């Protein structure tokens, strides 16, 4: 009996990673489930939309006046920014900077969300038909949401930034201190830095763009707590992401391609690159 109970642990992944899109059969069952999820989500949105549009209009008029005023101010700011963008572009050309990356954006609607456990993810209504790739960054206007984890035929799963398997290379915007952000559940993240790194509450953390598929400068979150390890060497920074997962209805997927990775992939091929990364990881573990 004991051997029967212990035997599945042999299969239990020692790297503790979630299922990836390459395992076809287990993910196929999600293709059956997805139409139910989509139907329920659309029905719920219809009810919410009808209530908000036709019945609950108490504060709509007041909000309309406030928003019109804000819009006028923003239009004036945009005109100013357009001038600055043109000036920036001219200066970059003068100094010989090439475009760092080409990017295009894909908007996706959220169909499902699991946010109340240490394993946090979203399901969106874009899949292989939208030419997505595993690892693509997922954002909204206020910051990073997560990373594309699995892709189905018409839907995909996004690993949220608070998930315990999520890692991201980040820097503190104020003093450019670099570290690896890890999700710790409950929509919180953690950064482990040297004790003497100058970190303050409310410091903003952004993506570093050095490794991975996230371009530089995307807002991630702010520091809400600093504590110190008993070893007296490191400090634990708790980060609150800018994005509130429960309020999301749509997200943006970024087709970001790192030029260095693209060049290596073109010369050596995707298989060679994967093998090289696998060999390097194995050597680092040893």
């Amino acid at each position, binding site marked *: *009996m004991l051997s029967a109970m212990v035997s599945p642990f042999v299969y239990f992944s020692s790297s503790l990673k979630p299922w990836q899109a390459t395992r076809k059969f287990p993910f196929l*069952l999600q293709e059956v489930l997805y139409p*139910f999820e989509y139907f329920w989500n659309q029905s719920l949105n219809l009810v919410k939309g009808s209530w908000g549009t036709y019945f609950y209009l108490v504060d709509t008029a007041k909000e309309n006046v406030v928003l019109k005023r804000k819009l006028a101010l923003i239009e004036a700011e945009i005109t100013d920014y357009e001038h600055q963008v043109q000036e920036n572009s001219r200066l970059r050309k003068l100094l010989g900077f090439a475009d760092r990356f080409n990017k295009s954006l894909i908007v996706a609607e959220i169909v499902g969300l699991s946010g109340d456990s240490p394993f946090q993810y979203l399901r969106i209504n874009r899949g292989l038909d939208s030419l997505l790739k595993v690892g693509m960054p997922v954002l909204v206007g206020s910051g990073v949401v997560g990373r594309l984890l699995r892709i189905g035929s018409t839907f995909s799963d996004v690993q949220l930034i608070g998930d*315990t398997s999520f890692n991201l290379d980040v820097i503190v915007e104020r003093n450019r201190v670099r570290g690896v952000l890890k999700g710790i559940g409950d929509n919180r993240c953690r950064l482990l830095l040297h004790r003497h790194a100058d970190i303050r509450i409310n410091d903003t953390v952004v993506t570093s763009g050095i490794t991975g598929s996230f371009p530089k400068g995307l807002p991630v979150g702010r520091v809400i707590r600093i504590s110190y390890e008993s070893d007296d060497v490191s400090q634990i920074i708790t980060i609150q992401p800018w994005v509130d997962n429960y309020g999301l209805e749509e997200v943006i997927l970024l087709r970001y391609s790192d030029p260095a990775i693209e060049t290596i992939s073109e010369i050596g091929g995707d298989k060679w690159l994967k093998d090289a990364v696998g060999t390097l990881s194995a050597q680092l573990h040893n």
Partner: protein
Amino acid sequence: MFNLFISCISFFHKKFLVHLVPRPATGSLALDIFYLVILLGIQFNVIPSLLFFHHIDLLTIWLCYHFIVLAPAPALAMGLIAALMLENHSTVPEGTYICIYWILAIVLNLLRDHLSWRDYSPWLACFFIAGIGVFLFETIVTCVKTGDYGYFTLFIVAQKLLGITLSTLFGLALVQRHFLASGRDLT
């Protein structure tokens, strides 16, 4: 006109909707898997939208019922399929639910001939302990990944216990309707 509308709804309900309500251990593996998919949809979509994004673990209770009522081979097949569906609908590490449901299936299969399932108390104990077991396993996996216990505050634990209690009540209702009331026996 109103009567015609009501009779159309009633016909539609009797002909189609009643078959969409999940029933456990129907005797057909394909139908059981179909109801498993519907239950997963209810667990991950319907209940969170009614309970402000918190979900109740109905699948563990559903599987416990199958592990007790069905013969070992079809019960294990159901458990494997349910575990694969759960793992691909979540970001848990590969093999988490395969392990826990395998252990649950083995233990229940060994215990089922030694308990009287004609009473509520073994079912109550079984469902509650299974729910606690799944929660503890997830806890261990989370703590290994994050390296500390900081995630598990009193609020989180209380929330999980409430969820386990509600799923146990669901299990008792399931047992009352499909096992005790129908007078069926273990296969």
